[in-house]
Every structure is written in C-alpha cells, then in structure tokens.
C-alpha cells in the first residue's frame, strides 16, 4: 500500500466548480476513510477554478469534529491550491476549530452580537 494517498477534487466532483455542500461531503467521506486508517493524504486542487465556503466546510471543516488538529495537520497535504483559495480555506479551518472547540462559544457570540436584547430573548 502506498504511504501517501492522492485525491483529486476535480476527479471527485467531476467539475472545476467545487461549490456544492454535497460534493464537499464526497471529498470528506474519502478523507475520513483515509484518516481513520491513519494514512496521509495529498489533496489536489488542480483544475479547480471556484470554491465556496459551503464546499470547504463539508469537505474539510467537518474533519475537525472527528479528528484532532494535530492529526489533520500531520495527515493532510494540499497541492496546487491558489493563494486566494488558500485564504478561504484558512478561514473555513479557523471557523471550524471555533465551532468544534467550544460549545459555549456560540452563545457568547450571540450575546456579543445582540447585547442585552440577545440575553433577553434567550431567557
């Protein structure tokens, strides 16, 4: 068995547009299988022209609910990703870490956003 697996988003999605959440789910399913087996994966963005946060949340953000940051960092490598797509992925990853790290965070953000009104409506 090869030590490093290679996955092409283009091949999985079948299009240069990696935009739909359900397509992201297909990528996630493969990554999950590999990470469950403690394998490392190179994820290729070759020929991908458009990405959305919805796709990346499903494909990669979701990993943070199942695997440690360390395992994801050690197992997942990116290839041929454009700099602005990397920026989007970074924001998705940071959001996912927050989403899964602190279950109370959501309520805190609500209070910060809405002030007293938020507190009042939650009661």
């Amino acid at each position, binding site marked *: 068995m090869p030590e490093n697996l290679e996955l092409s988003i283009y091949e999985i999605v079948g*299009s240069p*547009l990696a*935009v*739909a*959440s*359900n*397509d992201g789910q297909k990528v996630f399913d493969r990554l999950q299988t590999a990470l469950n087996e403690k394998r490392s994966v190179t994820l290729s963005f070759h020929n991908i*022209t*458009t*990405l*959305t*946060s*919805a*796709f990346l*949340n*499903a494909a990669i*953000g*979701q990993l*943070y*609910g*199942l695997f440690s*940051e360390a395992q*994801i*960092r050690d197992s*997942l*490598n*990116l*290839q041929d*990703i454009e*700099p*602005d797509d*990397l*920026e*989007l*992925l*970074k*924001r*998705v*990853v940071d*959001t*996912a870490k*927050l*989403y*899964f790290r602190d279950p109370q965070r*959501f309520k805190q*953000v*609500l209070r910060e*956003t*809405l002030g007293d*009104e*938020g507190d009042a*409506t*939650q009661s």
Partner: protein
Amino acid sequence: MKYSLPSTIRHNQSGFATLMRFYAQTKAALLDDIEVDFKAVTWFDADMCAVLGAMLYGLGKRVNTIRLTHIQQNVEAVLSKNGFLSNYGREKIPDTWGTTIPYQRFEVKDDRYFAAYIESEIMQRSELPGMSPGLKKKFRESIFEIFSNAVLHSRTELGIFSCGQFFPAKHRLDFMVADLGIGIRQNVKDNTGLDLTAEKAIEWATEGHNTTKRGPIPGGLGLKLLGEFIELNRGQIQIVSDAGYWCRNDAKISIYQLEHAFPGTVVSLEINTADTRSYALSSELSAENIF
C-alpha cells in the same frame, strides 16, 4: 382577483415593498384567477423577475390561474428577452444586445444545472463587461455562496429563482436569487431559540461566525464573505427575508422592517464591473500551515 402594479418597480426597498404588498393581497387565493395588471408599469428592473416569479410560482402552486395583462411594450420587451414572460403565455424574443441574464427556476438538487447556467449565461458570454479575472472569480464564488446558502438553509420545496441584467454603460451587473423557504428569522429561531425580528435576524446572519448550522458540518461564513466582497467591489447587496430588509452599500448598512413579508429569502447583488482590483492577497499564507 385583479391587482394593479404601480408605475415603477426597482430593486430597492420601495420595489421590494411593492411586490410584498402584492403578495400579501393575493397569497390566500386558491383555485382563483389572478390578473396582474401592468398597465401603469413603465419600468420593471429585470432582476426583480426572480422575486415576482417566486411569488407567482407560489400562487400557481395553489392552483390559481395567473395572467399578466396590459404590459407596455418596453417592459414586455425586457421581460420577454429574459424568458420571464415565457411562463405566462408569451414567446421568448432574441436578446439583440445580449444584456439579459435569463429568469430561471431551480430545484435545490439542481446545483450542477445552476452552475452550467452561471457559466453559459454570465461567465462565458462575450457581452460580459470587461471584468478582470480576479473580479470574475470573486463574483462567481459569491453567486455560488448565495445558491449554497439557499440549498443549505431555506428548506424550500418550491425552488430557487434567479434573474439578472447587465448595464454595460453603467458598468453594472445586477443578479438576484430568491427562494421560497422558511426565511432567515424562522431559521434562526428554529436553530438557536432566538426570536428576533426579521431584520435583526438578517443582521445576525451576516455577522462573521454566526451560523444556524447544527450537526457535523460547520458554517457561518457565506454571507460574511459576500458582504466583504461587495464592500471591496463598491457594489451593493440587499437581503430581504420575511419582513426584514437589509442593505450594504459601500460600507453603509441599512436595515428596515417592511410592512409585509416575503415568503422566503431574496439576495440581490449589484456588481461594479469596472472594478479593477486584483483581489490578490497581501498575506503570506502557506499550504503547510493551514491546519
């Protein structure tokens, strides 16, 4: 039942309020004949077909017969070119100047079909104003963020409606997506327990990291990213959901409560096509330190 539209319907707060009033007065109709009288209408922003089309589709679902009557020639020309009137007994006519983006209804599972529509009707059109490659990419991403939001959050069973228009001389591209889903206010209430007003719920959803998503897939970036892009582009984004109206123009945000509600969510984009910003990033991110 006959309803007469006023003289001007533009994609602004007033135009949305006008169409919400129409819907409020017709939504209870069942097995009825609904005549929408365009006699007074001298201007109808083409992208507003997404909103009117969604409303009329909802009325059609209640087995009403829809008739659009007395449409003035200039209005009829635009609404025939973009295919809207093909749904109501008129023929589609050729778009000589190539400035229309067709009216279309999609099912939530039609993401591939929607993608093909965006590519063929906007991105690959030779008439498209000279948008820079960076702007084209950001615009394409924004449209897909809107569609994905509708798919993920609206729970619509009636579909997602879109329409647009180029204005080459004004360097502007208008594009609108409407869904007949549960709306942002209900979505926030169902998922967070917060019982906000409709306009406050939109404001909440456009803040970074706020999300109504639950379960294994995180969310909460889509509308935030859209707002950031529109600010850089010096364009405009409007969101109408339930009775809430939210607008970001330049960096200025306005929110209002409308008199009547829309049965879903509308996102309207006004893109400045003369934007020459490269959208290249100043930060030095590396693929090695993303995770």
